């Protein structure tokens, strides 16, 4: 279960960020922000082999003693970042992938909404509910 989930736009500003409320949200915001550097690094690593060959799931960006940060980039350079608790039974890679997949699907649904202007913060309730389902149950 994730502790914090963030959707970052192509220009690296957050479209949606949500963390387990009890804890210090600022810390998670900061973590997500710093993880963007790692994301950029991984994106540029592929180089000339363009997006088609680059996998969307970036994997573990970097672990800290408290939590692990996973990244995922869409073809439109929208980034999803999941901060997962390390103490939690280590989530399998497949689980993280499925979480990203759900995020991506929900994000696509939000995008399909003609009333959503790309670049706006995501205020879709369906998206919220999906994210809530993925977050760690309120501690």
């Amino acid at each position, binding site marked *: 279960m994730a502790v914090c989930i963030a959707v970052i736009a192509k220009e690296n500003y957050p479209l949606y960020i949500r963390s387990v409320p009890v804890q210090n949200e600022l810390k998670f915001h900061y973590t997500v922000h710093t993880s963007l550097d790692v994301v950029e690094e991984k994106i540029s690593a592929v180089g000339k082999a363009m997006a088609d060959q680059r996998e969307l799931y970036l994997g573990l960006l970097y672990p800290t003693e408290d939590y692990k940060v996973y990244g995922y980039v869409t*073809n439109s350079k929208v980034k999803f970042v999941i901060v997962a608790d390390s103490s939690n039974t280590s989530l399998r890679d497949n689980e993280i992938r499925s979480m990203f997949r*759900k995020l991506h699907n929900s994000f696509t649904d939000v995008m399909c909404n003609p009333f959503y202007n790309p670049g706006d913060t995501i205020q879709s309730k369906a998206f919220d509910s999906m994210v809530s389902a993925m977050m760690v149950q309120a501690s």
Partner: protein
Amino acid sequence: MESLTLTDGEQKYYSDLFVYCDTDNTKKVASNGRVLDLFRAAQLPSEVVLQITELCGATRLGHFGRSQFYIALKLIAVAQSGLPLRVESLNSVKDLPLPRFVVAKNEQEARHTAMYPDSENQGSYQGVIPRPPGRGHVKKLSAHEVIQPCVPTVEPQLQPDTTSPVVSPHQSPPTSPHWRKHKRQASGGNVERQPVVVAGAVWTPFREPQAGPVVSGDGMWSANSPPPVQESWVSLKDAHPPSSSTLPAIHSSPVQENSSIRTVASATTANETQRQSSGGYDDPWKITDEQRQYYINQFKTIQPDLNGFIPGSAAKEFFTKSKLPILELSHIWELSDFDKDGALTLDEFCAAFHLVVARKNSYDLPEKLPESLMPKLIDLDDSAEVPDQAPDVGYSGSPVEVTPNKSPSMPSLNQTWPDLNQGNEQWETFSERSSSSQTLTQFDSNIAPADPDTAIVHPVPIRMTPSKIHMQEMELKRTGSDHTHPTSPLMAKPPDLSEETKLAPSMKFVTANSGDGYSSSDSYTSDQDPITSVVTRQRSHSGTSPEGLKVVTAPPPPPPRPHASHSRSSSLDMNRSFAAVPPGPQSAGVVAYPPAVPPRPLPTQTSGPHSGHRSDEGLAAHSTTSPQQIPEQPNFADFSQFQVFAASEEPSDDGEKHPESLPVEKSLEGAGPLRTVKSDNQEERAAATVNSAKGSIMAPPPKPVRRRLKSEDELQEEALPLKSNVIATVLAAQPSIPRSVGKDKKAIQASIRRNKETNTVLARLNSELQQQLKDLLEERISLEVQLEQLRPFSHL
């Protein structure tokens, strides 16, 4: 207490509410929970409620009598319409909408009120209903009596408005115009919720009875309706049969406004009225036929095809006209776009429209799409409890929000809901599966058109693996040469075409296709790929050596040239495999050349300037190699022709040589292996000269062939006669060489071999003779020297 004049509708409404609250049936409603709930449901600030209660005198009495209750309701209406709470306002406010209670929306009231048009309200009821004598008498008065006074006060103000909202609930089913009327109200007083209030007020009381057993799980989407409400309205339920059944009754009622306004088609009006209408049914989200028809008409204005889609942008514009906040529109879209495709089908559009109308009428949007709005048109036959659902077959059903346990009357329906919900989840999972991160970026490269005869081909880059190449070769062998139609190679059995005809269409086909290395065919025409790829190879062939392919009879181009042309268009594999490809459409000889460097033992032999020999030897070499390399060469005709031609040339040019070479050959063979070996080495270089010498020799009578291995003199003396013998034999054997064009391949090859050997022999002979000549000259010189030495004596 002031006299309270209520319209008939209000009277009914209030009486219903009173009965609702009057659980004890004492005609005296204490401040029990129902009343408080009701007042709370009015969505007024608590202080306002307190004020109201005080105003109406309940505080004085300690409880709500009927009159107090009615006054309170009236004051609630006043408060909801934003007017200051004054006792005077009770009667002064003319067209006060009915108090709206979010908890219970009741369309019955609306219908009832609708039944009484404005014009009738004012005075008639007043006359009918005795004025309440006062507070003390209020209790005794009937509901109608009490209500009556208020009615006129209420009505006039809302003359233009009241009627329509009042009317709309039951009119909304029939027509859209009322929706528009509603819209006007909405635009006018949406903020104050005046029309809403009316509608809501009209609805709420009746909503509760309606919410009774008919739809026990009625989903008031505010979800505030307390379950007990339903029970208390049992009596009313009897009086007010289920909504759908009453609807027709109400529909039949004279609806003056029905025909009046039927022009404008603005979405917002429709939204409002629709919302009211939707509220009055068992299922607040059910769409009536009339609503549905209206939605369909609206749909048609955007998208004439009812089975088509409304793209997101068009829908956005359309719904933006409703002036709802974008966020809400976004939420409505999320709810209504069921398949998440960014476009609205007719059902989705109706659902969205319905939600917009509801929202316009200040109904809260549900979190999930109500089932009645779900874009499904399944006939839910198990809604037996729901009466008269025929018109709304597609949408019949219990409301979504209601938990299944609340609607025992429709267990089967409820069962379908979980299925639907699960369907949603399944949908989700399906979409998950289908849109995994992998598939998001990959496209199906093997899109096979349904009809293979459409011949709609798009370039499909294929990788030429050796296995594929082999497959292509097999295909090529199998299908032959009918390249005019893309699929015909697969289907047609190629007739035995001559090589040229095969070449021609193949080349045409090649030019029609595009791209070297790309096969212009779909995967289903994979069989075609070998053809095209082979053809492309041919094209590269033809591009570089057209003359070689086209001119069959002309001398073949030098072997290395076609080979070089393949460097770009084909890999080494292709070259190799290409060499192995049966030259069905290809010229056997020429094509066979390039892949394999023809072993040319002849460079050593053909160092001489004799082109004829060279060509002959070249031919011979090719002929020997080509058959070896190409297992089957059905059309060896070209090359054979050439061979024959060349062979025919040979005799004419080197006719003399051949007889020479043959005897030379034979003499050589007879001399011994050693000699041949040695002479080979030596005569490789001098072969040409020997041959030429032999040629010259041939004209005169054959000179004796000298053999070097033996003593030169002896050999010279012995070899020459031997050689002459050999030459004679060769000459004798020469005529046996076939010269006809259509000679058998083997015979030609044999003759070629013989000629080659003859050449070799002659070359050797030549070198030997040259050597002998040199020796003789040396001897002569030595003899002359001796002679001169002896001669001086004479000169002395």
